[in-house]
């Protein structure tokens, strides 16, 4: 049984981030692994016994609203991470986990501080499809972001083509952050499967035909993006 906690889906979910929950759940279920998904709304207590925490993207006003609960996030998700739970945070959700988010008007909000870095406005907004790699896996997606994370931590995605950046996101222990949507995990099933392996602590059983169909479709989606980028 894998416990997935979807954090603040009603405010953080601007770019179809519910797809990340769907991909993890389906890819586990298609292999006969049971999954329990808990959705936590703003102000509700976040359980700290989850195996995987998913935090989606949001506009600046959404990140500001969620940041009012940064302390609760730090406590609950922090203690889960201390017990080696995994976190995938997208865009604004990743910014929320850094120490501080600066806005272009000079103001800032305090983040959960689970990622040792600061989120700052980009000089130019980044919008478009990209391809890249993470730990030897080819990944692809779409980035639409006005903020970046300043950190000494390693990036999650390297060798990026299609956009004016070389790398994206952060890896902070078991926390992964990226600006990629698409949604990220449906289109990059190898990353999803690796998260499931870590959560299960074991190899994944073979899946059914539905799993193969979804994997093939995702592979073709990335192939199409790679062709558009001309690589």
């Amino acid at each position: 049984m894998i416990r997935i906690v979807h954090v603040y889906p009603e405010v953080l979910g601007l770019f179809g981030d519910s797809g990340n929950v769907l991909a993890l759940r389906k890819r586990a279920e298609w292999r006969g692994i049971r999954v329990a998904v808990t959705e936590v709304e703003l102000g509700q207590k976040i359980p700290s016994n989850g195996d995987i925490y998913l935090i989606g993207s949001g506009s600046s006003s959404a990140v500001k609203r969620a940041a009012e609960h940064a302390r609760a996030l730090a406590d609950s998700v922090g203690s889960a991470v201390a017990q080696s739970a995994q976190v995938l945070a997208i865009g604004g959700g990743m910014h929320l986990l850094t120490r501080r988010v600066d806005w272009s008007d000079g103001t800032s909000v305090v983040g959960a501080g689970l990622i040792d870095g600061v989120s700052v406005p980009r000089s130019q907004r980044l919008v478009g499809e990209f391809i890249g790699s993470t730990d030897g896996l080819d990944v692809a997606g779409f980035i639409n972001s006005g903020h970046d994370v300043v950190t000494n931590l390693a990036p999650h995605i390297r060798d990026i083509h299609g956009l004016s950046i070389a790398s994206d996101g952060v890896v902070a222990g078991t926390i992964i952050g990226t600006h990629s949507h698409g949604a990220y995990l449906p289109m990059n099933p190898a990353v999803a499967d690796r998260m499931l392996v870590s959560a299960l602590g074991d190899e994944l059983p073979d899946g059914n035909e539905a799993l193969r169909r979804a994997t093939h479709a995702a592979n073709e989606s990335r192939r199409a993006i790679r062709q558009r980028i001309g690589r």
Partner: protein
Amino acid sequence: MRTVLAVVLGRIVRVLTRLRGGGSALPGWVALRVAPNFLSTVFDTFASRGEAPIIVVTGSNGKSTTTAMIVAALEANGHIVFSNPSGGNLPQGVASAVLASVSLRGSLKASAIVLELDEAYGPKLVATIKPTHAVLLNIQVDQLNRFFEPERVIEMVHQIGASAQTIIVNDADANTRAIGNILAMQSHAVYGFDVDPAAAPRGVYDAHVGIQTRADRRAPRALVTAQSARVTGIEVDGETVSVHLPAAGLHYALDAAAAIATVAVVMGSRHDASVSARAISDLNPVYGRGEEVQAFAAPLTIVMMKNHPSLQMNLDALQEAPESLYMAVDEGTPDPSWIYDIDVSALDHVDVLSGTKAWQWETRLAYAEIPVGLVEENTSRAFAHFGVATTPSRQEFRTAIVNYEQMMDLRRELGYKEIEGQQ
């Protein structure tokens, strides 16, 4: 003098482009190059004639449909209306439309103007148009690759609203309602249209961002009391009229309520709501929005997937899963991440999936375990296959769900020559 020159040159270009069967924005572009003040001259001349309303319509969804409805209702109630054709909502498009009905001296032969405005260009255009009435339809998560954040759209729609003395807002949408409340405090006259919550069990999919006040709704000037498929009841000025919608869905019912509220506000006691209802009921669908075209010697209903809310409301409105379904999405939808927010359970299969983004939709449908017959990125091959592979048993049950660009391509391929945005 420049105005005369702009009209003459613009008209010549208009004739030439129409001979070629080509684009529509060019004549307007030429007129604006010759006389940069062309549009303000025309609108100032119109405004100087007195009380005639200048109505602008904006929002994320429903601009073209609502504009067409307001025009039809005003005309049926005796007005002579100047409007921009569906989709021609950028400055060049508006100028092109003006060229078709303006005198050499820049005088429009109309008693009312109704213009659809793009959210992004609107704030700049209203300085020229100087609208008397602004209709604010909704603010939805839409075209983020272009707008970046819904908050920016809220700001643009707010600016368009602030340019008019009289505002008609969608009170079922949290953000346009909030804009209406702010403008009311700044002594604008604000009227609302709304939907009875019982008639909208799934809500209106407004953007959950932005101002989000819980402020009260106004007493609605027009209220959607019931909506079922293509028939809606709208309560206005103490009577309930029945409207046959151009296509099925709550969003079209709200568009009709917006139109009836607007015409009621503009015409006051001279408005005959039943005349408006009949005029709106007689409308054909705007291009690709539930429009029925002929393909493979049978009717094909084109449903547009513009963004999450519009596609969801179109799917919610389906009476049953389409029997023969073609779907196509291309680079006109650069980032289809939002398809994961769509409840696709109204579909039981897709026959053919096409366009450059076909595999992203196939991924979405694979995760929803909805069968797909064929994925073929090449749209010509895919659509030809759709014609051969499907034989709908009931006429209306061949359906295409496509994005805007694919809708235009499809119409062109099927020999529908008129192009959106062209007079």
